[in-house]
């Protein structure tokens, strides 16, 4: 990290000069810098460390996903097999047959199962759940609220190390041979597979530990929102990003402990065989599914709510308009968080009783309403805006496109009779990838682009940013849309091989995954280039109104603000704050921070 000081916010005389330096300023030596980062309680540094870790994990999970797709290029098992004790990778089926692929179908199948399990575990527990809250949320929330840090900075650092520790366990269990339970750990398979080995326990422990990281982050954010808003910032003066984070944190705090006890019971079950999930002892495997989805359904909203939170910012800033129906959007975050807790049964339509299935189906449809509110409001925000089609805005539009498909296809799965047909098929796979990846990851990348100048003080290359977007967008649709069709045709999930009629869809999907890879690579090199040689970023390149843009430098100083910001307008009051546009082609920016910030005597002193 080079020293970057792009601030043009006036430097005031201050006792503690180092607090006025950009947070990225390195220490005197490399070693000191490393120690500084490893022991920092600065939310910005922790956010950046999370960002790097999450992107690395995304890379690992992506490699697993590509391996899964290559395996499915052909109907038979193609990608990995053990021949004469050595693991070899085979790309074409004909080669496979000639070298005697049937010599070890079992290990080929196990390899596939381990890889898709790894993909699911990494992407869910290590990437999507922590992605936006832990990285962008950590970085931005205190800035947006006008605070110096999150409420419990040491806890924040602790949750980062817990995350590292949990990741270590997860990766370790993969390295020592991998687990083949699927990320859902369904019993009794997960309690009897790989008997006598600790790998599965390691992986469960990893998820257990990661849960604590998630809980602590959520707890921290809730307290931050309650206690550290800048003077003058009421609940409805908060940016919608913060609202989204708040809803996310509520779910994290209320749902994650349940996965904790679930995984604990699963470990007991595996090690001591207490019997709760074991039908061989009168327990009930479906009870595990209830336990599991009681957390894991709300957690899909932990995944998507931050994506929606980013969306609200992107759309408002790049349309330079107040989000249409601000309160409706804010309350829909809470409504989603609330309904999230009573719909988990729709993952069990084929395994639970009829009465419960009917109740859960009805409740499931309720969650469609707040989601619909959000999407309609975002589209309505575009109306008569001043739409700046930069890379983040393209990602916002891409989000609307993909999330609409993902959300609407949820209607099929909520309907009981149709779900009996589609349950556990590729239709479900496509549906949740459209929501999780087309929603959360797309918003995440859009958000990274938007806040990149703020985080690192450098601009990225707009051309390559948009090129990357189009590759990702096209690759994504090519990968996942065919999966809808083959799902309806009856292709079940988690199949290492398949019958011939699904061939064409699988091949399209695999080719799409390569396009997707190309898109991500373009983004990656764009970011690296920006860090190394990108132009310096102004404090407020997009002309946004939230505090991190108006009152903080790019990158922000260690203490975020020179003076405690006082909020005098809403986060999206472009109409009131930005000078009216008088001449075509002139796009006025909001007033500079110094013109507005008021120094106040702190209350209580």
């Amino acid at each position, binding site marked *: 990290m080079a020293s970057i000081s792009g601030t043009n916010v006036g430097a005031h005389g201050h006792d503690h000069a180092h607090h006025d330096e950009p947070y990225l300023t390195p220490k005197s030596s490399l070693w000191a810098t490393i120690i500084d980062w490893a022991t920092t309680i600065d939310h910005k540094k922790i956010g950046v460390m999370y960002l790097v870790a999450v992107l690395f994990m995304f890379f690992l999970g992506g490699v697993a996903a590509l391996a899964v797709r290559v395996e499915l290029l052909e109907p038979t098992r193609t990608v990995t097999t053990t021949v004469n004790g050595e693991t070899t990778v085979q790309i074409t089926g004909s080669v496979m047959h000639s070298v005697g692929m049937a010599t070890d179908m079992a290990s080929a199948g196990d390899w596939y199962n381990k890889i898709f399990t790894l993909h699911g575990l990494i992407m869910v527990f290590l990437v999507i759940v922590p992605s936006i809250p832990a990285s962008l949320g950590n970085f931005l929330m205190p800035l947006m609220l006008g605070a110096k840090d999150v409420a419990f900075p040491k806890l924040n650092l602790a949750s980062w190390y817990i995350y590292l520790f949990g990741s270590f366990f997860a990766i370790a269990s993969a390295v020592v041979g991998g687990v083949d339970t699927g990320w859902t750990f369904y019993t009794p398979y997960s309690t009897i597979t790989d008997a006598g080995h600790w790998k599965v326990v390691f992986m469960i422990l990893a998820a257990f530990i990661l849960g604590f990281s998630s809980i602590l982050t959520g707890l921290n954010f809730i307290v931050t929102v309650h206690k550290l808003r800048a003077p003058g910032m009421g609940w409805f003066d908060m940016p919608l990003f913060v609202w989204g984070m708040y809803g996310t944190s509520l779910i994290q705090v209320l749902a994650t402990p349940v996965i904790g006890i679930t995984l604990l019971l699963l470990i007991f079950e595996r090690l001591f065989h207490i019997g709760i999930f074991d039908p061989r002892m009168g327990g009930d495997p479906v*009870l595990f599914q209830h336990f599991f989805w009681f957390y894991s359904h709300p957690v899909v909203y932990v995944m998507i709510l931050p994506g929606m939170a980013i969306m609200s910012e992107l759309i408002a800033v790049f349309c330079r308009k107040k989000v249409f129906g601000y309160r409706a959007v804010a309350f829909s975050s809470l409504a989603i968080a609330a309904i999230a*807790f009573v719909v988990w049964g729709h993952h069990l339509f084929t395994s639970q009783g009829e009465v419960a299935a009917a*109740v859960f189906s009805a409740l499931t449809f309720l969650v469609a309403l707040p989601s619909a509110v959000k999407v309609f409001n975002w589209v309505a925000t575009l109306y008569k805006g001043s739409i700046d089609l930069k890379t983040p805005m393209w990602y916002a539009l891409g989000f609307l496109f993909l999330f609409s498909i993902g959300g609407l296809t949820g209607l099929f799965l909520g309907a009981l009779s149709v779900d009996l047909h589609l349950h556990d098929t590729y239709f479900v796979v496509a549906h949740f990838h459209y929501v999780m990846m087309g929603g959360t990851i797309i918003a995440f990348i859009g958000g990274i682009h938007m806040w990149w100048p703020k985080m690192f003080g450098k601009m990225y290359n707009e051309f390559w940013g948009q090129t990357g977007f189009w590759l990702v967008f096209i690759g994504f649709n090519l990968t996942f849309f065919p999966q809808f069709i083959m799902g309806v045709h009856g292709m079940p999930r988690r199949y290492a091989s398949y019958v011939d009629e699904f061939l064409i869809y699988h091949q399209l999907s695999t080719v799409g995954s390569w396009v997707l890879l190309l898109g991500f690579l373009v983004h990656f090199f764009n970011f690296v280039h920006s860090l190394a040689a990108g132009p310096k970023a102004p404090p407020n390149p997009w002309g946004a109104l939230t505090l991190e843009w108006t009152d903080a430098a790019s990158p922000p100083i260690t203490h975020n603000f020179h003076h405690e910001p006082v909020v005098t307008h809403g986060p999206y009051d472009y109409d009131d704050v930005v000078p009216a546009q008088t001449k075509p082609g002139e796009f006025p920016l909001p007033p500079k921070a110094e013109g507005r910030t008021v120094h106040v005597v702190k209350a209580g002193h």
Partner: protein
Amino acid sequence: MAHAASHSAAHAAHAAHGDHGHDHGHIVIPQRTLLVVFGILLLGTLATVAAAQIEVWFAATFDVVIPQWVNVAVALSIAAVKSTVVALYFMQLRYDNPFNSLVVVFTLFTLAFFLGFTMLDLGSRKALYDYKGSYVTAGGQGNISVPARPGAPAGAEYETIPAGTSIAQFARITAARQAEQTLANGGTLPAQLAVFCAQEIQRLQADGKPLPPYLVKFEQVREQYAAILAKKMGHGHADSAHAEQGASANHARVRTGLTLPEFSQHSSHSKDSGHSKDAGPAATPAGDNPAAK
């Protein structure tokens, strides 16, 4: 001017923050209040124990069947009251920021949803067909390896439970094995094995089945275990005031109307039985099945 205006606006806004209160949670609760609360908790504890005892006494004396939910409801209500007192005074929720109480309330809601909806499913599986909520083999299926029990063949680390046998049944199999060995070697049975042998004899005699040799042998030496058996199986036993260990005819447990479920109709691949509850406009008696012809 703008400076001053926003200054005061900021102050007003700051003061208006509902949850920036400064007085919450600094209440010093008098020692006396703490003592009273502690007293209430003690009383509650005694009440919940007493309620259970009274119920036993009541049911035995007046020979009535008290549904089991009564006991549960009474015990949990008292527990709920005690917890509320702890939360309000010891944990100071009563004097605290109301948002903290809100957190607790939401947590309890979450718990209620969790328990309620899960029970909704597992309790309503039999809504259409009885067998959906029943188990094929009582106590679970066998065909699993368990750590070797006492009396297992020498050197065995694991034993395999025969198919269709539950862990509980296997415990009796191993107990019989152990009792047989002990009696054959002329040893003295541990208390629970003596009780087991006595119960086994009762069970077999009730079914009119002959006794295996080790039980015959036990009959011969039964006298030396008389004290144990009287304690564990008779009326006045030391283990607990209302507990008893087995099939004695006159035990003092509250009768709840519960009976062990019958598994026989589900244990086979049911060709005709187990379907008698099939809904349908023209439900036919079991066995009237076109496929069976």
